[in-house]
């Protein structure tokens, strides 16, 4: 499944329903290593569910999901844990642990999963916080951070294990244009410096066109377009054309 030109992330005919509501229907796509793919679509079309399926926070009703050679729908808890160590997830509201400081939020996975000594953890945490511009806010609790700072802290936590695949759920939502652009720059830098594969769910077409190599457009649970901006602009689906061009 891998190799330089083969997808590091792949969906194969994935379907997911919540009760009566069919959220995804036979969705298939592949993302190559180092690519940034932006998932676009109207609200409630299954974009965030797609990300949660990729990190196995939810299970598909049918279909297969591949992450770096592992078919994750058939993995047990230990296997999933191994795969998740290669991934980072930036949640829409950052989802930082309320009781812990910014520093502790980042140190937690390092202490648990790497067994690194305290000194190395300290260096790693401070390096990542430096990257996202939060070096002076290590002792703050998430409740003391602004929306943009929380997003940066969430991104720092998603990057702390140096993931091969980064999933970002609406990284610019609720942020002003400048802060959103800074988050986009951080995502681009991560890809350029570490060749991280990044999937971004977003409503911000401007930001998506700035960072995205490819675009996946979902509508009513189906993937109606997948390709470069030019390819999606020439899509036969009007919704896909409108979503990619509204900026």
């Amino acid at each position, binding site marked *: 499944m891998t190799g330089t030109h083969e997808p590091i992330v792949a969906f194969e005919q994935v379907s997911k329903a919540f009760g009566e509501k069919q959220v995804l229907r036979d969705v298939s796509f592949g993302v190559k290593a180092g690519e940034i793919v932006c998932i676009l679509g109207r609200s409630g079309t299954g974009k965030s569910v797609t990300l*949660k399926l990729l*990190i196995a*926070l939810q299970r598909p009703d049918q279909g297969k999901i591949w992450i770096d050679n592992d078919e994750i729908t058939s993995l047990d*808890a230990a296997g*999933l*844990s*191994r795969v*998740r*160590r290669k*991934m*980072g*997830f930036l*949640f*829409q*509201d950052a*989802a*930082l*642990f*309320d*009781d812990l400081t910014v520093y502790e939020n980042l140190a*937690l*996975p390092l202490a*648990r*999963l790497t067994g690194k000594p305290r000194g190395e953890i300290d260096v790693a945490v401070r390096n990542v916080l430096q990257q996202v511009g939060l070096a002076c806010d290590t002792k703050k609790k998430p409740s003391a951070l602004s929306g943009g700072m929380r997003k940066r802290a969430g991104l720092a*936590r998603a990057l702390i*294990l140096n993931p091969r695949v980064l999933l970002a759920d609406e990284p610019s939502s609720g942020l002003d244009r400048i802060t959103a652009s800074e988050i986009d720059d951080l995502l681009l830098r991560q890809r350029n410096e570490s060749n991280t594969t990044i999937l971004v769910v977003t409503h911000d077409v401007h930001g998506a066109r700035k960072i995205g190599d490819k675009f996946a457009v979902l509508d009513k649970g189906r993937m109606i377009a997948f390709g470069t901006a030019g390819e999606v602009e020439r899509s036969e689906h009007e919704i896909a054309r409108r979503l990619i061009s509204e900026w």
Partner: protein
Amino acid sequence: MLNPIEFFGEISLFGVRALRDTFSPPFEANQVRLQMNDVGVRSLPLVLASGFALGMVMSLHTRGTLVTFGATALIPSVQAMAFFVEIGPLVAALLLAGRVGAGIGAVIANMRVTEQIDGIESLSVDSFKFLVVPRVLACVLMLPLLTLFMDFAGLMGGYVAEFAASHLSVSLYLSRAFTYVEWPNFIAPVIKTSVFGFIIGTASSYFGYTTDDGAQGVGRAATNSVVMSSLLIILADVILVKCILFVFPESAL
């Protein structure tokens, strides 16, 4: 909406998982310590104040009746036995169900709603072991201690009421209080309160961990945690008293 049998099945499996995960690594020593502080130390003022007031009230009630029969010397013994055997464990558990149960239910539900639990899982950290097990363990370990504090606060409250009425000395009061108290009167309630603690930790964590309905779900989880913990404690008390009397027949009043 689950039917009652499904509900009790689910909550039982939840409790069994908490019990099993308590003994499997990694052990969340730091989280357990934090929760013991929250469950134990922060509940202490409430438990002491309630025990003291309850002790005074009980002494005032029993005094009138025992004076009629010329048995005022028995007031400390009645007070001690009542607190050690039943009032202390049950009232401490119900107080904890209210204070801690609601807190656990609301906090974990809020974490579920704000995706903090998903965040923990996405980092390959077992959220159940990280959030649920330390809370259940803290309740199991701290409730017996809180019960002992409630028992002695109750005795102190009883003594104050008795001193006001008869100027009885502390040493005589305590001597009379412990006349009929034996080891089974301590051991059995300690076991009982550990079970009550397990019920509070498990039921509250269950409602928080399984919520999926936004802000309303958080409120419902807090309410359900208190109601179900209290109900299960009272039901468990009936069964446990029967078991205790079977194992320690001499502990009967």
